[in-house]
């Protein structure tokens, strides 16, 4: 069974709503919000071992909201979110983490950050060797190892 099927429709709706509260879309940075359908699909497809904790977090969120999160007015929704973030424990942290880990691998988001759309291997990266004359004062100061009898 996929994670998609493990979450109820109501849970998926709340997940989408809270994801948008964590990371809304931005015209300024030309990025989608975390409620974007592709990002939501990635979250649901890759929940895997996190499904149980995310489900618990969404249950907690539903309990705090008392109704679908999206139907609360702005102030109440924010109050629920603050409470969830403050006292949601490991389950809330897991939910936030899965949102962030899927968001920050989305092509549009990485492009906006100026990052390449690729795995680190096999191209790797290039590092400047640096100015090793910075070490001269350390060499000049010297020092000795503590003597062992």
């Amino acid at each position, binding site marked *: 069974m996929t994670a998609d099927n493990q979450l109820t429709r109501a849970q998926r709706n709340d997940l989408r709503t809270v994801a948008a509260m964590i990371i809304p879309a931005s015209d300024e940075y030309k990025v989608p919000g975390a409620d974007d359908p592709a990002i939501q699909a990635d979250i649901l497809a890759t929940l895997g071992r996190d499904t149980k904790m995310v489900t618990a977090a969404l249950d907690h969120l539903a309990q705090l909201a008392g109704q679908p999160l999206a139907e609360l007015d702005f102030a109440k929704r924010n109050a629920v979110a603050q409470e969830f973030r403050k006292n949601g424990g490991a389950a809330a942290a897991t939910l936030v983490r899965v949102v962030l880990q899927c968001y920050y*691998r989305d092509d549009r988001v990485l492009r906006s950050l100026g990052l390449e759309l690729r795995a680190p291997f096999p191209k790797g990266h290039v590092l400047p060797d640096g100015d090793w004359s910075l070490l001269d004062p350390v060499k000049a100061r010297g*020092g000795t190892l503590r003597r062992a009898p």
Partner: protein
Amino acid sequence: MAKDPVDVLIIGAGASGAAVAWSLAETKMHILCLEQGGWMNPAEYPSTGRDWEAKFYGEWSSSPNVRGRPEDYPVNDDNSPIKVVNYNAVGGSTVMYTAHWPRLHPSDFKVKTLDGVADDWPIDYDALTPFFEENDRMMGTSGLSGDPLSPLTHPPMPQQPMGLSGAIVAKAMNKLGWHWWPSDTTVATMDYEGRARCINLGHCTPACAQGAKSSTDITYWPHAVRAGVELRTHCRVREITTDENGMASGVVYYDKDGVEQFQPAHVVIIACNGIGTPRLLLNSKSDRFPNGLANSSGLVGKNLMFHPYAQIYGYVKEPTDSNRAPPTCLWSKQWYDTDLSRGFVRGYGVQFVRGAGPVFEAVVSEQKGILPWGEDHHRVFRKLNGHRLGFSAICEDLPEEHNQVTLDPVLKDSHGIPAPKIDYTISENSRKMMEHALARGREVLEAAGATDICVNSPIPWGGWHLLGTARMGTDPRRSVVNEWGRTHDVKNLFIVDGSIFVTSGGVNPTSTIQALALYIADQMKQRLANLFD
């Protein structure tokens, strides 16, 4: 059908097991190593995929409890502020380590004499010097010889590039007049012994797809296997058995199909780290050894030392290396030696950390409360991402008997073998040391112009260094193994891993663990004619 006995049976194919196997191979004895994990496949390492960062939170977590691979065993570390991290495979935790490569200092072997605390080691630094050198050649180290505040090393490869992060740290340390030096590492900076040079894939900790980071599956083991050592993978040892004379007679293990097997052996060497080794000894109870094997001193599992890490980091305006380089670049030994005016005894080494990738940055910063939800998220994230600079102090943990590994009465691994339970507290001395380190780290970060400074003290998932639980010594009442690694109680049973450390020093221990393993192998080779006397 009963198996033929082997001359030497090594349990564990990690840092120390690999080194001892390779060294003993020249004796042409029949040497067998049993390893609970399998061979690694670099094509499956995280850096080969776009989801490389997400894997750190699951199948590539440094915590065996989170990872939960069949090769892992669970650890009950609920009663410890520092959680055990390790890796179980051919190569052991060298598959998953930062490759930072300092050695213990000569003074670390004489702690009692110099500072009146803990105990002196029964050997000194000079006894290990040739083995440090041999190990550096085998593992392939990079660095810059001549650090005035570190033991002299001769890395066969040049140091890693300073990079953007290193340059910022170096300028800040110079401003403060404090010691720094490029770290010795086991990251190959040029092609070396069949290994390709580092191409900066990013964080090296969860294995290197390039093979530039030295792990014993690609260094020692190919040599050892070619020299005739037999390595049997996916074999988990349950207990060491003894005969009517109190000598080790072999081991009971579960093979890759989960079938119980008995392997007789003339000599048994344990290389299972500071958690796995006491677990195995305590699981090897018998009528003759009712408190566990080699435990007449009662010290098996006691004196666990972790190295509490005091970490402080912040964000500078300039870009840092982020995830585009090995994690460590420079070290400092400015506060390594005892200075009682600081309010504590002993000291700490520092490793400077280059930065983090975007997912890690987002997750950790959100948890720390510096990355907001809502509209301002994007602006703040762009300020943080790629601008992190870190200072991690490796604080010397002194041995205390109440810090210990025992067997959990309930928790078991997938073969039904009792799992280890950790009881550990951070001492007052260590706390003062950590506070001192954080204060110095803050000064460094401020000198670098960093803001949004955050602290992890201790790093909760920072139990990389598993030391002291089967300590070395000349007095059988106060130690588990003698000065050349043989257990006091069982004359054909040896221990070569970090559990035999007497004190921990203030540096990453793998270099010293392997030098010790080579030293013990050398001692065994010199005494082959009368090894059991």
